[in-house]
């Protein structure tokens, strides 16, 4: 077993990884930028190392500052912190350097254990075009789309003619929904292409653009996979992530109310094939689009790391995924019997963001009140507490309110009560949005798709 781990992340995920490390007897090292020095994860770690300054001071320089590059994206500072503290392994969490193959190689070359898949698997899946091509060869269904990067508007128009409108335009190296756009016709494609292109360069450092067929009534459903140290790949059920704003997830649930037993069986089998195609080790997620009308699915992308919404899978399987990550990284078998995994009950995750509940615009601020709900079936993975300041420098996730019930109805009832009981004052929050979501007929019946949020909040 690993004896120590440095968590190269912040907020709720750093805290969650540290929690399992400490529970399983692994010494946990946190790293932090000055802006995060007071967050709970820093205090709960066995040791904490500062890796970067507060991003721009108010009488600021005139050039835009790529702030996090100086902290959680600073590979050298993170590896130095591991050396200084004698940490034997690095867990990257999600975001930041989690899907950076060069960083993973750097960690391994420094003699540390990388808690994640082989860097080659990260690289193969990091480029969405390469990943699509690889999956197609492995027999996993993909939607009609680009087999190579789309270089310019003319090429985009030609591709869209071949694929057929409407199309989705996105950055091949992208993530988090940034720069993604749907185009119904040529004019729309011209503008979506330009947007995707500029965002791709700015946020992901690569201009490569991918175009694929847009599915109108789609659910976004993903499969949790786990590549064991002995080479076997397991599928631990699906998560429905169709509640999205700006192509970013807001609420997730398992099992998916829109997936039949037959479809589930095919999706899980395809996810295992996808993992095997890259000899996947550790926790990963195969994201798919389910065509509600056709009852079919296509591969979207594979996330080669722990997913934000992993707790819903933990709640219905009783498996601590972070613990399995540690065991697999150490070359050990999992803590559970793979033949005996029987998900039961229903779980939801509601992402509590620092944003207004109507237009979803960011609303950072100092937290004057923070009272988490408690009760049967509730789990709150929070990055903050009262007295902390939510800064504009990082993503808006404050906490994940996770709810378990024996069935979907009980989970929804508990979630409604928990949302009403959660008190946060200071920053803006989307708690009222979650109350509306849980009250909506679409979500209550489970009959919804990725257009749900825009129906609940028409522009």
């Amino acid at each position, binding site marked *: 077993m690993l004896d120590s781990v440095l968590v190269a992340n912040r907020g709720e995920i750093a805290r969650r990884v540290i929690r399992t490390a400490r529970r399983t007897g692994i010494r946990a090292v946190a790293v932090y930028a000055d802006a995060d020095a007071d967050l709970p994860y820093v205090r709960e770690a066995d040791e904490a190392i500062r890796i970067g300054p507060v991003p721009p001071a108010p009488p600021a320089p005139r050039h*835009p500052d790529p702030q996090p590059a100086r902290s959680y994206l600073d590979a050298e500072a993170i590896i130095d912190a591991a050396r200084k503290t004698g940490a034997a392994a690095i867990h990257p969490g999600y975001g930041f350097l989690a899907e950076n193959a060069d960083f993973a190689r750097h960690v391994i070359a420094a003699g540390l254990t990388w808690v994640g898949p082989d860097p080659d698997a990260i690289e193969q899946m990091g480029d969405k075009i390469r990943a699509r091509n690889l999956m197609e060869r492995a027999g996993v269904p993909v939607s009609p789309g680009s087999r190579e990067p789309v270089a310019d508007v003319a090429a985009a128009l030609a591709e869209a003619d071949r694929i057929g409108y409407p199309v989705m335009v996105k950055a091949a190296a992208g993530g988090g929904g940034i720069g993604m756009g749907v185009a119904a016709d040529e004019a729309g494609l011209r503008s979506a292409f330009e947007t995707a292109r500029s965002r791709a360069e700015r946020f992901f450092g690569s201009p490569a653009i991918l175009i694929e067929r847009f599915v109108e009534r789609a659910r976004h459903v993903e499969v949790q996979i786990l590549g064991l140290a002995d080479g076997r790949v397991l599928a631990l059920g699906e998560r429905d992530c169709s509640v999205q704003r700006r192509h970013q997830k807001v609420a997730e649930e398992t099992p998916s109310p829109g997936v039949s037993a037959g479809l589930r069986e095919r999706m899980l089998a395809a996810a295992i094939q996808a993992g095997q195609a890259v000899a996947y080790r550790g926790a990963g997620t195969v994201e798919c689009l389910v065509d509600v009308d056709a009852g079919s699915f296509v591969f979207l992308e594979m996330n080669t790391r722990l997913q934000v919404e992993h707790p819903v899978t933990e709640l219905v399987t009783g498996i601590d995924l972070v613990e399995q990550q540690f065991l697999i990284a150490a070359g050990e078998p999992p803590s559970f019997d793979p033949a005996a995994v029987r998900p039961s009950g229903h779980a939801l995750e509601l992402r509590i963001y620092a944003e207004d509940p109507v237009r979803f615009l960011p609303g950072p601020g100092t937290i004057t009140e923070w009272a988490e709900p408690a009760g049967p079936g509730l789990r709150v993975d929070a990055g903050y507490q009262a007295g902390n300041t939510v800064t504009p420098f990082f993503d808006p996730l404050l906490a994940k309110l996770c709810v378990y019930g024996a069935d979907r109805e009980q989970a929804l009832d508990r979630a409604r009560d928990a949302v009403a009981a959660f008190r946060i004052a200071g920053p803006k929050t989307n708690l009222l949005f979650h109350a509306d979501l849980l009250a909506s007929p679409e979500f209550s019946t489970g009959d919804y798709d990725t257009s749900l949020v825009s129906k609940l909040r028409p522009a």
Partner: protein
Amino acid sequence: MAEVRAEMVANVWKVVAAEGDHVDDGDTLVILESMKMEIPVLAEGPGVVTKMHVAEGDVVQEGDLIAIIG
């Protein structure tokens, strides 16, 4: 004369309009960035940018003056 103010704490990522520019309703004046989101600040009516109070890289607080449209 219209004052355009920041709706939230943010960094000024891009200043799109310059003092002296004529802008129409809905034109982008500056682009703010907060919590990994770009937020365009738009002119709410036609006019001339008589004063641009922010520069790229500045941090604005909620309610801070961004520009004056005359």
